[in-house]
């Protein structure tokens, strides 16, 4: 009888120690610096989750390949028409740059990738790209679809990278109107309910009226995003602040949930920032996909 009680007490003490240990471990995990957290996440993704992520990537690629041929044909025809109509512009631009003694613009380089969403809680706004540092992807590269800006790469590993889309609370992009008269900063604004989350263009001059439907492009300020990528269009005025500045609601051109394929812009501006953030650059094999 006494032995039973003693064994019970010992087991209770062991349990208490184990629970305390796991709680302390979980608190340590929460408060770890970003680097070690990144390593732990990477380890889990490359071990436990690897087969499941592989199946997801396979299904997404198969789905993309099964896309209606007529839709792809129509997209190709549109692109061909656009290229044909603007063929002379490149020559005119080159001549004008020569007259003004301007240097040639460095061309953008893109890496094609499949967009994979994990579906786990806490991963809202985060997606997985099956292209990593060996493909030339770097942190802060812009992620673009055929419609416009999807998001930005945040963490890069040799074979894959993690990025967030424009609905993430940390997402910011400097924007402008196509005529360059209106400038501001586009960010996701949280509503009381998720359906009220919207993109908002803030920091525009009070007197610069932007009509509903006005297109917004990335302005390239700050160097994080290349200039000229479509973000969305103005819906209406969101707020005016004491006659000083105005903010506008923006209708995005890309809806993240529907995206299965995107390209990472590994061109000049993103590349420079990336080189500062991640000096461990690997040889690129962009364009091989």
């Amino acid at each position, binding site marked *: 009888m006494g032995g039973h009680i003693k064994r019970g007490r010992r087991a209770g003490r062991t349990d208490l120690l184990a629970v305390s240990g796991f709680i302390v471990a979980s608190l340590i995990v929460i408060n*770890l610096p970003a680097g070690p957290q990144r390593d732990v*996440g990477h380890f889990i993704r490359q071990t436990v989750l690897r087969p499941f992520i592989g199946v997801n990537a396979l299904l997404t690629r198969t789905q993309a390949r099964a896309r209606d041929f007529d839709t792809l044909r129509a997209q190709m025809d549109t692109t061909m028409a656009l290229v044909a109509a603007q063929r002379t512009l490149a020559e005119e631009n080159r001549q004008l740059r020569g007259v003004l003694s301007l240097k040639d613009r460095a061309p953008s380089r893109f890496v094609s990738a499949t967009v994979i969403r994990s579906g786990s809680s*806490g991963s809202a706004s*985060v997606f997985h790209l099956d292209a990593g540092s060996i493909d030339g992807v770097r942190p802060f590269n812009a992620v673009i679809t055929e419609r416009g800006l999807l998001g930005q790469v945040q963490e890069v590993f040799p074979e894959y990278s993690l990025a967030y889309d424009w609905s993430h609370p940390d997402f910011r992009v400097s924007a402008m109107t196509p005529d360059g008269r209106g400038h501001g900063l586009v960010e996701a604004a949280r509503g009381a309910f998720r359906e009220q989350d919207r993109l908002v263009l803030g920091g525009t001059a009070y007197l610069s009226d932007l009509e509903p439907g006005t297109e917004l492009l990335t302005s390239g300020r700050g160097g994080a995003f290349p200039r000229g990528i479509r973000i969305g269009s103005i819906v209406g005025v969101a707020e005016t602040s004491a006659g000083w500045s105005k903010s506008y609601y923006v209708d995005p051109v890309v809806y993240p949930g529907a995206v299965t394929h995107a390209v990472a812009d590994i061109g000049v501006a993103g590349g420079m920032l990336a080189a500062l953030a991640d000096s461990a650059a690997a040889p690129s094999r962009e364009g091989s996909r």
Partner: protein
Amino acid sequence: MRIREVLLVSCLILTHLFLRTALGFGKAAPDLFIVALLVGSRTLGVGAGAGLGFVLGLVEDAFSMRAFGSSAFAMTLVGAFGAKSRDYFVGDSMGFLVTFFLLGTWGRDLLAWVVTEASVRPAFQDHLLIEAPLLALYATIVGLAARSLFLPRRKRG
């Protein structure tokens, strides 16, 4: 933990990963991690329940960029409380199981929300008063179905 319970918990974990990560169903699929944890913790010791919660929480956090560790913390506590509940509530009546699954799932969401950085976590009303109770109900229905299919109640007498 009997072999039947081990098999059920393993099946729930694998199904969760298959539905949510491999097929990308997201919240359209029930949260079978929490169901597995609640089912498992009722047959485990407090330390093992917390350990199971910690491991499942870490896997759940693998894709989390700004709230890493919040699921691990929440599921550790839920696993420990789930195991401890055996000392206070004996048996597996329908009323108890419904309350256990509902409170366990909602409690996990509440704990994860509390420890997530304020700038990243979702709005309180939307997440904890609307979305979380509905998801808890979904998990409860699936949890009860799984239990009744794989762990039938022993007949008395």
